[in-house]
């Protein structure tokens, strides 16, 4: 296994608030990792730090062997470090196809606008949006907007993809569809970090789980171990959940 992303003592303060504090971990190529933690734990901030949206207050980020601690967001994208937003961010007055083409043109390898549009059809088909290619992005319903975010990120040919609550607001069937899609993406060799509140979803897809609490990484390991970790139970899962897992003899 080769390491794709490594964080060393990463931290971020907003004014006096330490949103992320001394976080270190590394991700291996092709892994699917769950990132969990209570509201305000610093999950989104951590993704923003990794992708250059916010400058680091301390620590270092290495991506694919390179120190990227000082990168800008657009540079992260071009290096193959893609992410989706917790709140979807389409280009509303462009068509669905053009949205995806933006990813292929600026973050991916497409050499011209036409080449980008051409390449993007395949990504749309991959996420099942081919019938919406020519409709404006603003007219899509939420589940399809989330698919669009995925297609846009995929068009950038990322090596690692961070998904910030892609399943929030979806119903059970839609979640199943999204998970199947995420597995398909992982099969392409893309490393996936997924932020998710629904434990059932996290447990069903993650090979490893990171737990953030008050900006600190309180657990990093095998899902089975993490959900039995007393600190995680206390901080996030609650004792009821722990008891139920114990009773069901959850196999993870």
């Amino acid at each position, binding site marked *: 296994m080769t390491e794709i992303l490594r964080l060393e003592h990463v931290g971020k303060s907003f004014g006096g608030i330490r949103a992320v504090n001394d976080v270190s971990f590394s991700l291996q190529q092709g892994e699917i990792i769950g990132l969990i933690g209570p509201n305000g734990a610093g999950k989104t901030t951590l993704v923003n730090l990794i*992708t250059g*949206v916010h400058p680091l207050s301390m620590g270092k980020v290495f991506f694919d062997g390179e120190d990227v601690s000082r990168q*800008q*967001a*657009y540079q992260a994208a071009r290096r193959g470090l893609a*992410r989706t*937003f917790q709140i979807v*961010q389409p280009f509303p007055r462009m068509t669905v196809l053009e949205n995806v083409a933006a990813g292929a043109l*600026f973050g991916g390898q497409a050499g011209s*606008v036409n080449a980008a549009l051409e390449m993007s059809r395949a990504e749309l088909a991959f996420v099942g949006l081919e019938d919406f290619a020519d409709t404006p992005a603003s007219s899509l319903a939420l589940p399809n907007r989330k698919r669009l975010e995925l297609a846009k990120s995929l068009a950038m040919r990322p090596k690692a993809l961070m998904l910030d609550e892609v399943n929030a607001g979806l119903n059970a069937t839609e979640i199943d569809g999204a998970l199947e899609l995420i597995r398909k993406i992982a099969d392409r060799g893309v490393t996936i970090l997924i932020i998710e509140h629904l434990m059932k979803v996290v447990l069903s897809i993650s090979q490893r789980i990171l737990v953030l609490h008050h900006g600190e990484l309180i657990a990093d390991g095998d899902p089975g171990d993490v959900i039995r970790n007393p600190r995680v139970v206390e901080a996030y899962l609650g004792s009821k959940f722990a008891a139920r897992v114990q009773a069901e003899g959850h196999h993870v």
Partner: protein
Amino acid sequence: MMKSLLHYVALVLWLALIASTPLFADNYTIRIAISLTMFSAMAVSWNFIGGFTGYPSFSTAAFFGIGCYVGAIAQRNGVPLVLAWVLASVFVAVFAALLGAIILRLKGHYFAIGSIAIVEVTRLITSSWGSLTGGGDGLNVPLLQGNPQEVASFVLYVMLSILVLAFCTSIYVDRSKLGFALKCISQNEDAANMVGVNTTVYKIIAYTLSAVFCGTVGAVYASWIGYIDPTDSFSILLTVKVPVMVLLGGAGTVFGPIVGAGAFILLEEVFWANFLEWNRAILGLIIVFLIFFLPNGLLKLDYNRLFKRLINKKARTPRTMDGTS
């Protein structure tokens, strides 16, 4: 496809009409044609930053004014005419690129206010730097050779060339990777960054494009008028008029700025001729009208629907009369 071909044909006819004014019209009309052309060129320029990129810039008058002064000062120091114009354009482009790197960090209202402050600051510097610019007394610019008619036609053709150059640039931008990036920025700048658009660089390019042609227009204008002063060159009215023209025609479209500038200047002429004192008021009225009724400009109006609605109204009127009788 048909529609855009129609637009091109209409544009060519329009430009041909403007170009032919020296053949049949009097000097006054030629001056209107020049004014129409130079405002069209500045509107097309503004569209790069205000239309495609969605940054409400009010710095047009700063670019125009600097163009006036650099062109004039260069000529007074013996630089040949055309070279002085080129120098003015290059100077304005460099100025805009450096300035853009700073003020394009601002967004929305803050950017608008910052960009209008540039006009005031450049005007103040110009009027205080008396040794170079003549201060508040202004500068005389070497006159163009020839009788008034010849000079006016020459200026008209130069302005037309600038307009055509600006317009071709905007067609190219609209279809290129650059234009795609600008549209991404205008619709969602964070998302643009996230898909790998180097937003800083693209915004600076757009801002520079919005400046360079205004600089050329300013330098040519100075040569034509023969005398410039700070109030006339760095005019707040100019800086507001140009964006209003683009919004009137349709911001972010290739043809909108030319349609808007044409409609605005012709309206202004009608009002000048008929209600001299009300001239300023029409700018205000047009702004209010734009905000309430034409948020997307003349070009984006759905003329088919408007037409149908009018027909329907006409058709309905007799029927109600039948009903009541």
